[in-house]
Structures are given as structure tokens and as C-alpha cells.
């Protein structure tokens, strides 16, 4: 028997596989028993009621997709009344996800949803900071620090900072999140992207720009997980383009404790189950009795640290 359990701070996951925010809902229970997952991660909510962006909200590009959903949200009360109770029926940690336009806004919503049934809160800081210059909080260490520090002061529930790949300072941002009191990092959200229809000259998305997700993201995010693991001690949850068990093992070797699967579920709704049996098989074959033993085992001994941590100077 392979031990697939993973600790994210005080939270024990029965295995390292969980869905990514915005790519999962209880509707997936129509396809398989979602109690088999390591955690349930809800779609990001905001305090404000939001209807989201104009359609088209999705397009495809090679083996990737672009989305500009825009965080539609029915607000906090709807979340407590209609979403939370669904997940109380499961024996799986439930992770809420929140966003806000300011540090105070984040603190407000985190306070409101620090209720029984919410095992951790993912802080989606990949959204614009409207009090500053509109750049996403997670693009810079100081705005990251401010949000996480504020949230930390208001709730005792574990907080996971979800970082953006749209930054040149991923390690500084990761460190800032840890220093401000985050219990884990989720690395990462989508990459800002766009696409143009050469027949109509129109951008493929109603919102012009959107987030790229899918397999193309994987090596980029894997690199970021590796870099972050060099500078933080808190657990890292890898997320980006994961589509099979090999990807998961790679992320764990790079320093992730667990992973989130997003886009792959759209293509193959059962993919998280196949991944689970895949990692079990891999561990059995390679005589790994505890999957947590693999975390950060990437063999980079012959590489000087300075090289590993360099930004783009290849």
C-alpha cells in the first residue's frame, strides 16, 4: 500500500490531487465520486455581486485554452447558503477561494467566510489592485505582503496564497506571502494572453485578453514551483497544465506537496481519477512507500544555486 497522504500545514489530504479554483463544482459528482479527491476547491467569490465578462469567454490555442470568465459572483451569503452545505456532506477538506480589489476587501471577505466547513481559504491575489495602479497584487512582493498580512490578522483559518505567473519576481512574491503569514502557496494562476481571428480581425475573447491555461503552462509553472521551493518552507501546491500522473510526479519532485488540476478536467472529466491511479502505480513500481518522500527530490546537485535561481539569463 502506498501512502498518498500529504500535509498542508495542519490539514491532512488523503492524496495530493485536488481541482483548481474555477474549474470545479459539485457538478463533477455526476461523473465520479468526488470524495476520492484530496481536497475540494471552490470557485473564487467576491463580496460584490458580479456578472462576469462579456462572451465569448473561451477560445483554444494549440493544446491550451484562453478564458476571460471574469469571476462572476453571487456574493458571500449565497456562498454560505448554497455552496458550503453541499461540501459538508463530503469527507474531504473544503477550500474556499476569495478575491477583492483591496487589502481591506480581502480581510472583510475572509472574516465573513471564516466559518465551520471552510478548512482553508485560497487568496486569489491574481486580480487587479484597484487602490494602486490596477496591477495584480501578486505581481509584486509588497502588495502581496499587505494583503496576506491583513488577512492573517483577521482569521485563524489556514490561508493559501495563490500566485500569478505574470511576474518577474516570483521568488520575492513567494517569500513575501510566507513572511506575511500564508500557510501555503498555490503556484500558479493563468498567464495573461490574447488571440486574434485573422478572418474578422477580432480578438477571440469578448474581454480582448484572458488567461492561458493547459499543458503549455506546465514547464513555466514547474520552473516557478522549483524557484519558490528554494526560498520558502511552507508547502507549495503546484498548478498549471497538469494532465497526467507524470506531470504530478514532476511537480512533486520540483518541490510541490500537492497539485491542482484545472483545464485537463474539461478535456477528460475523469482525469483526476486516472492521475490518482497513475501515481499509485508509479510509487509501487518505484518502491516509493510514501508519496511525501518525493517532495523536492529533483536532482540539481551539480547546478550552482545562483544558476537555478536566475530569472531569465539562460
Amino acid at each position: 500500500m502506498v501512502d498518498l497522504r500529504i500535509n498542508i500545514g495542519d490539514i491532512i489530504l488523503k492524496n495530493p490531487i485536488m481541482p483548481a479554483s474555477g474549474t470545479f463544482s459539485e457538478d463533477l459528482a455526476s461523473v465520479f465520486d468526488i470524495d476520492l479527491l484530496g481536497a475540494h476547491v471552490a470557485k473564487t467569490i467576491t463580496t460584490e455581486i458580479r456578472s462576469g465578462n462579456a462572451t465569448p469567454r473561451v477560445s483554444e490555442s494549440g493544446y491550451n485554452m484562453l478564458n476571460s470568465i471574469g469571476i462572476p459572483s453571487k456574493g458571500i451569503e449565497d456562498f454560505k447558503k448554497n455552496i458550503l452545505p453541499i461540501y459538508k456532506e463530503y469527507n474531504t477538506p473544503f477550500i474556499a477561494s476569495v478575491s477583492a480589489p483591496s487589502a481591506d476587501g480581502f480581510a472583510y471577505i475572509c472574516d465573513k467566510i471564516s466559518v465551520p466547513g471552510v478548512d482553508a481559504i485560497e487568496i486569489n491575489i491574481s486580480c487587479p489592485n484597484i487602490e494602486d495602479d490596477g496591477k495584480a497584487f501578486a505581481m509584486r512582493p509588497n502588495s502581496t505582503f499587505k494583503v496576506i498580512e491583513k488577512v492573517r490578522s483577521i482569521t485563524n483559518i489556514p490561508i493559501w496564497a495563490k500566485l500569478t505567473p505574470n511576474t518577474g519576481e516570483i521568488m520575492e512574491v513567494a517569500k513575501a506571502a510566507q513572511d506575511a503569514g500564508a500557510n501555503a502557496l498555490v503556484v500558479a494562476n493563468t498567464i495573461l494572453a490574447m488571440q486574434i481571428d485573422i478572418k474578422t480581425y477580432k480578438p477571440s475573447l469578448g474581454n480582448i485578453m484572458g488567461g492561458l491555461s493547459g499543458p503549455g503552462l506546465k514547464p513555466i509553472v514547474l520552473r516557478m514551483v522549483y524557484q519558490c521551493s528554494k526560498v520558502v518552507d511552507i508547502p507549495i501546491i503546484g498548478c498549471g497544465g497538469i494532465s497526467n500522473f507524470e506531470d504530478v510526479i514532476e511537480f512533486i519532485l520540483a518541490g510541490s506537496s500537492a497539485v491542482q488540476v484545472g483545464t485537463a478536467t474539461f478535456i477528460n472529466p475523469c482525469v483526476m481519477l486516472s492521475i490518482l491511479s497513475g501515481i499509485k502505480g508509479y510509487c509501487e513500481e518505484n518502491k516509493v512507500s510514501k508519496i511525501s518522500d518525493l517532495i523536492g527530490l529533483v536532482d540539481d546537485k551539480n547546478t550552482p544555486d545562483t544558476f537555478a535561481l536566475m530569472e531569465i539569463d539562460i
Partner: protein
Amino acid sequence: MDNKSRIKIYEVDTEVISNNYINNDYKHLILRAPSRALDIVPGQFFHLQCPTFEGSISFLRRPMSVYQFSKKEKQIEFLYKLHGKGTRAISNLKKNNIFNIVGPLGKGFLLEENYKNIVLIARGVGLATLAPLGNLAFEKGINLTVICSARSKEHLMSIDLFNSLSNKVITVTDNDGSSSMVNLELLINNLMLSQSVDAFFTCGSNRILKLLKKLCGLNNIPGQIALEQQMACGIGMCFCCVRPFEIGNKIIQKRVCNEGPVFRISEALPW
């Protein structure tokens, strides 16, 4: 809804039985599928995984209404228009090829117990969506009127199928002008004078939606419409596929894949 009472969605490999042209623009795909995936309500759809074709990748699945199905024969059929790269890749499927599909998805048409006379108005590929409703109405002994609209006589499809289900199949075309909204309105009004109509069912066309919103409203007759929107997950998770609906005095966004694809005509908004 608790976990156990959920309707099941399956991801299954099917085998291509045939994939033939009906006319220049449309093909008819027949698949052998495991019967567990074939508890289908007319109006529901499947999410099809397009093969790679000549180096072109269709990453996302393509939504397609169920055209015909038989649990007994373990068969499911789609009628599709060659549109872009995904449908072109599907058109390249050959007999015995394996083809992965996810479904059944969404909420289909609802035939209320008291419906005795219904009218189906199908334009273009919309008839693919309405065809299984025709079968169900026939089985239930509901009196069926079908109005089929197309560009030309050559583009009219499935007339034989509808003729086997109804003795009132009316065809209208753009070529002879009979499909104009003015004519369609006249036709439907005359129909309502000669018989009672309990519900209208349609699909896809904006002009027909506008006309039916008016006629349903004036005559206080319910109607249902199947709508389309671009999709990613197809099962309600991503909110890519929303459209606006008017409920009370409010505009509400609903997911076509999950709350639909079939909606009340009174709530659907022309685009």
C-alpha cells in the same frame, strides 16, 4: 441534490459505424456506444473529442445535440454541419474508428403530461436537436406538427424521419420566400385557428425566437428553445457558456450547458 440521486454523466469510447454526407454541408455520424450512456432526454447533448486531423488540433470538446439514439441497438447518432476545424476533424472519422464522447449533458425538452398538440419549428441544423423530441412525442401519442425551414429544398433534411412521426410536416424555404417571418407568422396563426397548440419547440434561430416570443406571449402558449454557446467543460463548472435571460424584471446569466441547453421561450433573449 445529494450525491446518489445525481444523474450520471459518462465519458465513453464509441466506435464509428458510419459517417456519411447528407448534402454538401451536413454529415450524419452513427456510433456504437455503451448502453449506460444512452439514457437520453431529447434536447440533451454530448461533448465530442475531435481527433487531430492533418496536424490541426481541436483542444476543447465540441458540443453536439443527440439526433437519434437507441439503447437497445447501443447506437447514438449526430447530425452536424461542417463548420470549422473541429467538425472537419470529426468528418474525417471512418468506420471502426474509436471516438470519445462525454454525456448525456444538460437539461432536455420537457413534455408536460397535458400536452396533446405540439409544434416543432426547425431551422437548419436545429432539426437535429428537435428530431428526438419528435420521436418521443410520437411514442407518447402526442399530435405533432413540424415546420422545417431551410435555405433551399436541397437543404431540407430529415423530412422522411419527420413524415414517419407526423402527418403534418410543413416545409418552407428561403428560395421561394416561404420561410420569411411574415409567412411563418401567417402559417402559425392559421394553424392555431384550425387546431389547438399546447406548446412550441424550437432551436437556434434568432428570428424564429423573436417571432415565437411574440406569438407565445399573445396567445399565452408556453414554448421551449434549445440555445447554443461556446463551451469548455460542458458540465457546469467553468461559466464559459453563459447567456442572459429575463426572469421577472431581472437579467440573469445562466449556463447553457447546465441550466440548458433548453430554456423557456419567455425567458430567452434574442441576440
